[in-house]
């Protein structure tokens, strides 16, 4: 099946195949991001701005704040989980507290997908 993603309830959720999967209010540790000057951005997700599929990965851009330095804004594309079974569309979320590497290039690469 094709994977269907969208944000819901004014950015509260990433919905994957019509199931609410990733919610706001988690802290995400971002490495090598240029979101702020911190070595590790300690990012509080306050809202999902954009979601997309880069098979099998589900990615999102989040609005929020680095709670270490206070920088506010929207992140680059971040993987929030993956569809582990393309047949059933079963989704597996990523642990927000592991370290993530936002992908700056993906936006350029996107049209080819």
């Amino acid at each position: 099946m094709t994977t269907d993603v969208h944000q819901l309830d004014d950015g509260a959720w990433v919905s994957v195949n019509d199931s609410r999967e990733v919610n706001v209010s988690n802290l995400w540790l971002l490495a090598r991001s240029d979101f702020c000057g911190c070595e590790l951005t300690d990012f509080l997700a306050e809202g999902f701005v954009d979601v997309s599929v880069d098979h099998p990965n589900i990615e999102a851009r989040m609005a929020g704040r680095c709670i270490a330095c206070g920088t506010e804004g929207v992140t680059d594309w971040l993987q929030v989980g993956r569809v582990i079974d393309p047949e059933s569309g079963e989704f597996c979320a990523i642990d927000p507290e592991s370290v993530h590497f936002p992908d700056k290039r993906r936006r350029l690469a996107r049209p080819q997908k």
Partner: protein
Amino acid sequence: MPTKVENWKDEVYGNEIRDHLMEFAEQGWESIPEDEQDAWFERFKWWGLYHQRSGQESYFMMRIGTPNGVIEPGQLEVIAEVADEYARGPAENPEFGDAYCDWTTRQSIQLHWIKLEDIPEIFDRLESVGLGTQQACGDSWRNIVGCPVAGKDKHEHIDAWPVAEELHETFKGNDEYSNLPRKWKVAVTGCDQGCGQGDINDLAYEPATKEIDGEEKLGFNVRVGGGLSRKEPRFSRSIDVWVPPEQAADVGAGMSALFREYGDRDDRFNARIKFLVDEWGTEKMRSVLQDEFVDFELPTAGENMRESYTYNAGGDEHGDHVGVHEQPDGNYYVGLNVLVGRMGVDDVYELADLADEYGSGEVRLTQRQNVIVTDVDSDRSDEFLDEPLLENYEADPHPFMRGSIACTGTEFCSLSIVETKNRQVRYARWLKDNVAVPDGVEDFHIHLSGCTASCAQPQIADISLRGMKTRKDGEPVEALDIGLGGGLGENPHFADWVEMRVPADEVPGYVENLLATFEDQREGGQTFREFIAERDEETLQDLAEAEETDYEDPYMHNTKMTWYPYVEDDDMQSSPAPTNGEGEPLQPADD
């Protein structure tokens, strides 16, 4: 490209949702196909139902829209019965018990833990006394707000209640305006105090006089594009239009049709009309309204009464309607303080009885989450004040209790970052017991919102609190951003954000220190708002330190990660949800 939500709305929206809702209810929670849940939940909002947050699947928040906050004789008892029978969740709230009503900042009523299966019966009960949930959420005309004592107030110039009522009747269930790009919030004010809060609504009617054919007439000036959500608060802006009461609905129709046609359906974050006003400016707003959406000549704005607005203006105010006030007919209205707007169901029954016994049976809701018993017999107000219910819901509350407002927060809301209502109850009590009230302050506004949606209207409080997180000893804890000096009045002002990410258990200490500085440094009878207004950002940041005190906060631990923040076993995996119509846990769907 239209958003997904717009596509769902194109398929089914507005009145027609009801038949589907009833069918799902009849067949039970599991009859909603899994891959259609998102679409149906979005649509159910139009009928006042908002699916609760994660860990509470199959349960809904239900909003009942009471225009202008007017609960007519006979209605409150039914509201209590519905809450009593249908709004009992699987767990108890330690402050409020297991069934309660929330009086909201837009003069509506919210119930929680509603099961889909009960909705047909609930609708029957509500509708049998003229209540309803239609358009209480969703992309349409929301509950009309206004001065809560409209028609019963000595400050009034126009009786705004018939106007609010006409708007309600014209636009409830009206297919022409049922599918707007986003919510549409309207305020009607008839008094010279500004208690309709028009400044923070999408469309505002404000009292104004205008000379028409040599005669001075009373009507409304029209403002557009207010709202607090996200980090983009706006005050509504005058579009230089005056309208007589009998044409208020025509202008409302025109304005909301303009929004329907020109609002942004490609980006929900940019959809509220406040952004269209930003983009177009007020002159274009007016000319498009005139040219395309009304068929009579719009008079230019009349003489407004903003100079006399005291509501939430920081100084002496008749403002929040708490206390005993004489009505023009010689009877009294008595405003009672409801801490954070939540009332246990037994108290709601009692309130309904008292309103019958001492007044006309009418009760009204304010935009400060309080209740007003109207039409109290002129010779029985003292007797009423002695009623035991009024020990908890006081007519003469302590300034910190009186000024406290809180939104729904992590208890039920998907967007939330922090716990709100129970925390604010604890804050108010601690402040009352530990902090000296600055001289002359009768009502000190502290508004707590769990996220930037700003349902508790934090930006227009003396102290604004907004949900955040921080780390304490390396561990994530719930925290609040603190803003100061917001309010309405002739020259409304949004709070300036001064302290960021203060751990929630250090906020009472901050307030204590702040008020000590205020008392120490204020000049003469300066109000708190004036005191804040005359200081620059840097000075404000140095006013006070946050610190721990003997205040204890049981909700520091990321309450959003629990299925319900107050139960012993709060682990997400221990949630009984989703449940069937009897409240029994369903097996997790096998997909």
